[in-house]
């Protein structure tokens, strides 16, 4: 009988890296390789200001990708993250600008609206047994439409809410370390990532997230109320989209109701590049973060090298196919 050694204190980093380590190593190595290649190609790339621009560009897509990761690990997909983000931004605009409520209330309302919409998607999927692709496709269009209806198709500006733009653009770190003016948006991305990683790795909800994606029927036969947990995960993902809504509204200092379509695909791309399996059961937040960073570095680097935007899209598409192919090859070898 093998003795079981005392479990060591939780090391969050090891927690973040122990599943699907190979694909993440690959993703991480690709990220480093991209950074090196771009710095060699252009001296302007490795500037602190440019690095911060990359991080800032990652923040919204990163948060959305984290939401998408949660749903994808259950074996589902969420196509509504982009327009849900916009919807939440519009809700914040209604509460803050139209109703003139205090800042905190607007933020809470946006997150609550996100969670509620997520709960709706979760209900369609878990209770009504609508395939996640269809259920969230429907939600995507409903929310796009609602955003336009509520806002009267016009942007809502936050000029009357002092400090709103600081949520994303301000820099708490910069006030302490003036040489490192990392914007709050990036800080929020990392806080959301830490929280999501903790939930996935250390809580009951996270355990069922993986279990559902791994073998839902087995979980159900174990006496777990799978429907309720699945709805909870979609709601959590929705709440995280609410945070993304606040971030983008703060960065633009306005809620742009026409925005949002297309963000879901970028988010899913980041998840996939980060090694999360679309068939469910496997995935990590750190992988998703790296995936989001790779996309931002690519876009930024190619722009610095003055590559036309059309070609940037082509390259991103190729990267997605390469990343998934690498994962397939690895899994075939593992068999």
């Amino acid at each position: 009988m093998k003795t079981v050694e005392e479990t060591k204190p939780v090391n969050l980093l090891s927690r973040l890296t122990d599943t699907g380590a190979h694909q993440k190593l690959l993703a991480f190595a690709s990220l480093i390789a991209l950074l090196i290649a771009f710095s060699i190609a252009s001296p302007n790339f490795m500037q602190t200001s440019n690095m911060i621009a990359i991080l800032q560009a990652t923040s919204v897509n990163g948060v959305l990708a984290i939401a998408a990761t949660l749903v994808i690990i259950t074996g589902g997909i969420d196509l509504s993250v982009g327009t849900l983000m916009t919807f939440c931004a519009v809700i914040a605009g209604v509460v803050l600008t139209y109703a003139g409520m205090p800042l905190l209330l607007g933020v809470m309302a946006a997150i609550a609206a996100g969670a509620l919409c997520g709960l709706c998607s979760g209900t369609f999927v878990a209770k009504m047994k609508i395939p996640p692709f269809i259920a969230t496709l429907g939600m995507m269009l409903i929310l796009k439409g609602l955003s336009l209806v509520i806002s009267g198709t016009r942007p809502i500006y936050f000029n009357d809410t002092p400090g709103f733009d600081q949520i994303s653009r301000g820099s708490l770190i910069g006030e302490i370390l003036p040489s490192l003016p990392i914007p709050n948006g990036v800080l929020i991305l990392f806080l959301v990532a830490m929280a999501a990683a903790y939930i996935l790795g250390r809580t009951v909800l996270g355990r069922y997230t993986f279990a559902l994606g791994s073998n839902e029927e087995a979980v159900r036969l174990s006496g777990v109320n799978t429907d309720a947990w699945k709805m909870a995960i979609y709601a959590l993902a929705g709440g995280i989209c609410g945070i993304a809504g606040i971030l983008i509204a703060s960065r633009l200092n306005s809620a742009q109701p026409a925005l949002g379509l297309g963000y879901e695909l970028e988010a899913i791309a980041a998840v996939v590049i980060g090694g999360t399996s679309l068939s469910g059961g496997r995935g990590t937040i750190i992988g998703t973060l790296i995936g989001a960073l790779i996309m931002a570095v690519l876009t930024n680097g190619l722009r610095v090298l003055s590559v036309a935007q059309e070609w940037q899209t082509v390259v991103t598409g190729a990267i997605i196919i390469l990343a998934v192919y690498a994962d397939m090859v690895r899994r075939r070898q593992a068999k």
Partner: protein
Amino acid sequence: MAPIVKMTGIEKRFPGVHALKNVQFELEPGEVHALMGENGAGKSTLMKILAGIYRSDAGDLSIDGESVELDSPRAAQDRGIGIIHQELSLMNDLTTAQNIFIGREPRKSFGRLDENALNRNAAEIFASMNLNLDPKANVGSLTIAKQQMVEIAKALSYKSRVLIMDEPTAALNDAEISELFIIINRLKAEGVGIVYISHKMDELKRIADRVTVMRDGEYVATVGASDTPISKIIAMMVGREVNEEPVEVPDLSEAEIALEVSGLSRGKDIRDVGFSLRKGEILGFAGLMGAGRTEVARAIFGADPRDGGDIRVHGKDVSVTTPHDAVAAGIGYLSEDRKHFGLATGMNVRDNIALASLDKFTGRGGVLDDDAMRKTAQDYIRKLGIRTPSDIQEVRLLSGGNQQKTVIAKWLLRNCDILIFDEPTRGIDVGAKSEIYKLLESLAEEGKAVIVISSELPEIMRLSHRIAVMCEGRLTGILPGGKDTTQEQIMQLATQREAAMQPTGETP
């Protein structure tokens, strides 16, 4: 002793099937009660009712003399009923400890998991089972046997008083089976009642106290395991009257050998299988579920890889590594799952018949010759008696028997003279069955070489000129067809496990 579980008058219907008819079952504490029956006898359905997975349509289920309603797996677990499923129901991406305690994770405040307690509890269970397993190992990385042990550990962790084991030894080797039996005996001594479903006759004598036999969804009898000869139990299991006329076996000693397979093997699924098949012959493949019959057929057809083995068609070596090769050599395979692998159900009869032979109808510039296709399709509809309003009827609207005939037409048109039928009458009603039988017989008379895989012994007996029997990937014997071979003889070969006691029950 008062029984823990008493089931009486249990009824269960699924759409189109009367799965359980007035079934009774009883389990005492400290007893290993074997539940025996052929595939489809209703054993698993009955146990799923006991485990709260299905609900019975009628009948009474009492636990400790108290009538109960088990409406969910949770309710059954709360009553101390644990089940180990036939298909492993584990989450491959989770660790062994996480699997065992799914749904009952030790928690701290705010839904946080107590991972240390989780691993410690799992380690304790493994220790009590004398199992060398790491609580933190990913289940997906374990062997099937180890995964099975995790399932058992999971069931034990519920402090079950009733433990249902559905073919627990299916994937275990002899040493592991002995380990399992030690665990079962320990549980017995602690007063746990164990329902043991197995097809392996030799295990009965080793482990069971009583045996309940089921057949076609009905209760047959409950007998003592030690004082009932295995042959009698087999007779109770198969006891159906075979009122078909016995097959007339033609003299084929002069006929050309159409297919010769030797040394076919792949891992544990197929172990050194070899046989030959003559023109005009129907060779039946009998065996229990998982014996490896379909695997052999798919390997011959090139649908799955093989480690080794030679295939000779009409005396010539052929290299078959893909279905395309097999078809080129004249081998056709008719899958047991027509809807998934045999038919394009949304297309019409004509297109389905022509599907594998489109090159025959392709004219200049790749244009299909619809006229020729229609004539050919109508020819086969007449020849095989496919009942369809026209050749442009969608096949999904045909009955099972006529769908099967459409698949047969497809392969005949492709000039396949070696035809492998995998469960040719599954999902086909009784009347249509005999039509399919007659069709298979007339194919053989025309000189086609036919293999029929079937889990239904009467079907094997009705059709086969010779009967190949498989068990655990091995060909355990080839019996002559006709009235001299009994179902009991086939069953004995089908349960003849390697290095195990002879299934007659005598101690070696």
